[in-house]
């Protein structure tokens, strides 16, 4: 099995992450991890507060973009950085749903230096592929 989680891939204009997960839950968790690691030092983000998120979309790719977009929105409006996310992804009759509990904290400039500011989550190269050992996709952030 390829390594779980995410690795950043070199990209001329923006930041791209390759996400891997044994399950869809893991894949969505990896996406949250990639966003935090793109923006700051992830080890410095503590799980001090928690939030609940529920989202629905017609397909998995749209759901992934909505999911990371939601976390980005929390950062932009509340400076909330995600330490850990426990998403649960499931199909239903009209598409897909993610329910998640996320934990993290409000950014403290002294402990959370900004690496890059992510503007948006893109559809570029986004295709969630099912492999024998799990799921994989590229996720590109516009910065």
């Amino acid at each position, binding site marked *: 099995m390829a390594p779980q989680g995410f690795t*950043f891939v*070199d*990209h*001329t*204009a923006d*930041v791209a992450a390759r996400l891997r997960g044994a399950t869809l839950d893991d894949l969505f968790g990896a996406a949250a991890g990639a966003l935090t690691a793109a923006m700051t030092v992830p080890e410095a983000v503590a799980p001090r507060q928690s939030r609940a998120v529920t989202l629905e979309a*017609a397909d998995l*790719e*749209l759901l992934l*973009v*909505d999911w990371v*977009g939601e976390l980005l*929105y929390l950062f*932009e*409006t509340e*400076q909330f950085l995600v330490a850990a996310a426990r998403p649960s992804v499931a199909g239903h009759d009209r598409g897909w749903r993610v329910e998640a509990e996320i934990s993290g904290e409000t*950014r403290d*400039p002294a402990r959370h*230096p*900004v*690496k*890059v*500011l992510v*503007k*948006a*989550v*893109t*559809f*570029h190269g*986004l295709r969630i592929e099912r492999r024998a050992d799990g799921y994989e996709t590229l996720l*590109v952030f*516009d*910065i």
Partner: protein
Amino acid sequence: MKLERIDRHRWRIPRSGGMFVDGIVYADAQMMADLQNDQSLEQVRNVAHLPGIIGASLAMPDIHWGYGFPIGGVAGMDAEEGVVSPGGVGYDINCGVRLLASALRREEVSPHLREIVTHLYNNVPTGVGEGRRDLRLSSDDMRGVLSEGAAWAVTRGLGEADDLDRIEENGALPNADPDLVSDRARQRGATQLGSLGSGNHFLEVQYVAEIYDEPVAAAFGLVKDQITVMIHSGSRGLGHQVCQEHLRVMVDAARTYGITLPDRQLCCAPIRSPEGRQYLAAMAAAANFAFANRQVMSHWARESIAAALGVAPGRTGLHVVYDVCHNIAKFETFQIDGKERRVCVHRKGSTRAYPAGHPQTPAAYRDVGQPVLIPGDMGRYSYVLAGTARAQAQTFGSTCHGAGRKMSRSQAKRAVRGRDLIEDLERRGIYIRAAGMATVAEEMPEAYKDVADVVRIVHEAGLSTRVAQLRPIGVIKG
């Protein structure tokens, strides 16, 4: 990919498969060789698949890889039969550039440069999140910003009335509908009006280093060694959110209207459809936020420079030369095959370049053409050009917008390792303050193509003509 050379600076990607028109790229042989390793030519081809596209899918010499559309891409869509695509505008709606010229000369400013940059850095927010606490928008204020653009700021005392005469579209797109900007987008923007943001955005104190065309420079009010201020910023989180939400809608809309696309990021809807109209009205509102944003920052820059020099703000003579959009879709009128046609021009990393005599060229510049503002990277130089009739005829009145990256951010950081970039720049006479020093490394001069090459090609191709070169001496960044 099949590529035919049309002339010295133009290359054709012939129509094939699902393309409605050819692709045409403005580049010289060296640039075209570099582009072979890039996906951007494929993106020029993909844009030619959009229904209602007129003439050709165009790319300027600063073409590089983007989302859906290439950066440097221009596409004119028939206003009745065509589509509108949020990917043809980009996430940072109305990211653009404003140039202010002053009555100050380089030698009187140089001794005070550190104070000036410090004042600017303290008064114009950069980097993460929030703008100034003394500018918080009520919901009525937000409505005013979204519908009136730069004029909202001027009526609040943040600028002069005649600033508005020298802004593309006078600083407000018509047909903006504030009600179509979601609560989420408003929340992202509520605290960000009057802030620079991060990435390649900047505010620079510059001087006029070269004049290439004396009469046109004189008409623009530019003389050698004059101090100028350039602001590069856009619609911040508000615009990003508008784009993100409408891309989502357009993915479904493209399916609804039976539009087949080679890349999901190109998703679009007919201009006359509800989805198309709603996007255009929300995009116009976000564009107005960006015009207001640059207006507010201009005002604070005027105050900061005067305070640093210990003079009254009027004494600096800082006034707007022009303000252009780099990421926008707008309805404009062109003569095509002898007929007047209304076109929805998508410019994604491209600048409008209207010629002398055009009714939308400001009265002060009507004899010489619209000023075109091309920012370079922070260590080198930026350019002022003038619009031409050839751009009007060939590229929907469009030209290039900047340099374009050539190194990834991690490559740039590796290249910088062990060097003190701030000190390097200071040795070259450029004093910089940045919120995140990592940004400085990523935005180092060598990470970008030389903007002079891009400008040379549009000049030689006749899409705009070189007027002046501006060099930075003070920079603030995110």
